[in-house]
C-alpha cells in the first residue's frame, strides 16, 4: 500500500470490491442461464460452464490476494514462496479427477467384483454356521 496516498487507496478498495461484486453477480447469472433457469431454453454445455466459472473464480482469487491482501506490494521473494507451492495443486486436481473418472468407468466391474466377494463371504458364513450347529448338537 505504501505507494498510494490514503485517498487513493480508499477509492482503489471501493473499486476492487465493486469489481468483485460485479464478477460474482455475473457468475451467478451465467450459471443460471447455462442451467436453463433464466432466459429459458435448454441447459447448455456443462464443460463450457465449468471453464467460465473456474476462470472467473480465479480472477476473483487474484483480486483478493493481490489487492486486498496486498500481495502486489510485497517483495518478489515472498510472492514466490507463497504462490509457487500452490502450483502443485494443479497436478493434484488433474490426477485426482482422472482417478475419479476412472472409478466411474469401472463402476460396473467393481460392483461385479463386490458381488462375487460377498458370495464368497456368504459361503464362508454358512460353513461357519454349519460347524457351529454340529458343535452344538454334539
Amino acid at each position, binding site marked *: 500500500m505504501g505507494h498510494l496516498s490514503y485517498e487513493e487507496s480508499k477509492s482503489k478498495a471501493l473499486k476492487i470490491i465493486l469489481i468483485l461484486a460485479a464478477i460474482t453477480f455475473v457468475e451467478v447469472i451465467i450459471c443460471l442461464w447455462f442451467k436453463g433457469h433464466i432466459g429459458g431454453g435448454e441447459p447448455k454445455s456443462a464443460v463450457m460452464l465449468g471453464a467460465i466459472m473456474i476462470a472467473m473464480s480465479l480472477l476473483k482469487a487474484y483480486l483478493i490476494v493481490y489487492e486486498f491482501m496486498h500481495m502486489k506490494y510485497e517483495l518478489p521473494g515472498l510472492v514466490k*514462496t507463497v504462490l509457487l507451492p500452490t502450483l502443485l495443486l494443479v497436478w493434484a486436481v488433474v490426477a485426482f479427477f482422472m482417478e475419479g473418472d476412472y472409478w466411474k468407468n469401472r463402476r460396473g466391474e467393481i460392483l461385479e467384483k463386490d458381488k462375487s466377494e460377498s458370495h464368497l463371504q456368504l459361503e464362508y458364513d454358512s460353513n461357519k454356521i454349519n460347524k457351529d450347529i454340529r458343535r452344538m448338537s454334539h
Partner: protein
Amino acid sequence: MAETLTHHSVEKDEKLWEGGKQPFKVSYGKLMMWYFLLSDAFTFAGFLIAYGTLRMSSPTWPVPDFVFSTIPGGIHHKPLYFVTFMTFVLLFSSYTMVRAVQEGHRENKNGVVFWMVLTILGGIGFLSCQAWEWTTLIKGEHVSVTKNPFSSHTEHGIYLEGDGHDIKEGDSFAPGTPYLIHQHDGKWHNLKYKVTEGENAGAVKEQAFGPKAFGALFFFITGFHGFHVLSGVIFLLIICVNAATGLYVKRRNGYEMVEKIGLYWHFVDLVWVFVFLVFYLL
C-alpha cells in the same frame, strides 16, 4: 579498500537470517501468517479435491441449483438466491476489513474500531445465514452425513405416483432430472416410476437415494469453512477490543495486528470463492 567493502557486505548477508533483519521486508508475524495461510490453503484444497474426485466417480450427483433453492420464508424454486446473498455478505465484510487496515495505517483509532465492528457484523451475518442453510437441509430435507435424499435420474421415465409436493403421477423425466425423496413421520417415500426408454424400458423402479458422500462432504467442508469464519470473528473481536482500549496506539506500527487478522479474514473470503464454485456453481 574495495576488498574490505566486499568482505563487509558478505558479512552483512550472512547475518540476514540471524535475526534483527526482516527477510522479505515484512515482520515475522506477517510472514508467518502468509505461510500459515499457505498451509491452510492446502488443507482446503485437499478437501475440495476429495469432493471433486468423488463427484467425478459418481454416475449421479445432487444438482446444486435444485438442492440450494430455498430462501427464508419457506419460498422454494429460487436457485442460488440465498447463497449468493451469503457470498455478498462475506465479500463486503472483506471490504470493511480493508478499510479498517487503511485507517490503521494512518493511526486513526476510531476509524479502525468502526470498520472492524462492521467486519464482525458481516462475519456474524454470514454465520447466521449458514446456520439457517444447515437447518433447512437437516430439519427440512433430512440430509445427514449418512443419508442423502437428493439425487438425479439416469434414465427416461414416468412417475407412477406423486409426492404431494412438486411431482404428480404421470410426470415424465429425462436423465439428469433432480429429485428429493421426502420423509413423512420418520418414513421415507421413495416414489415408484416406470422406465420408458433404453434397455430397461418397461421396468418399474423406485427413486434411489443419492450418493452418500454428498452430505458428509457438504457438512464437513462448509463446516470447516464456517469454523474458520467463527475463529476469525473471535480474533477480530479480541483485536477490536484491544484497538479500542488504545493498546496499539503505543506500538506505533500502523496497527499491524489489524493487518495480520486482515490477511486471515481475506483468506477466509478467498476460500469461500472456491467453496462457492465447487458446491454451488458447478
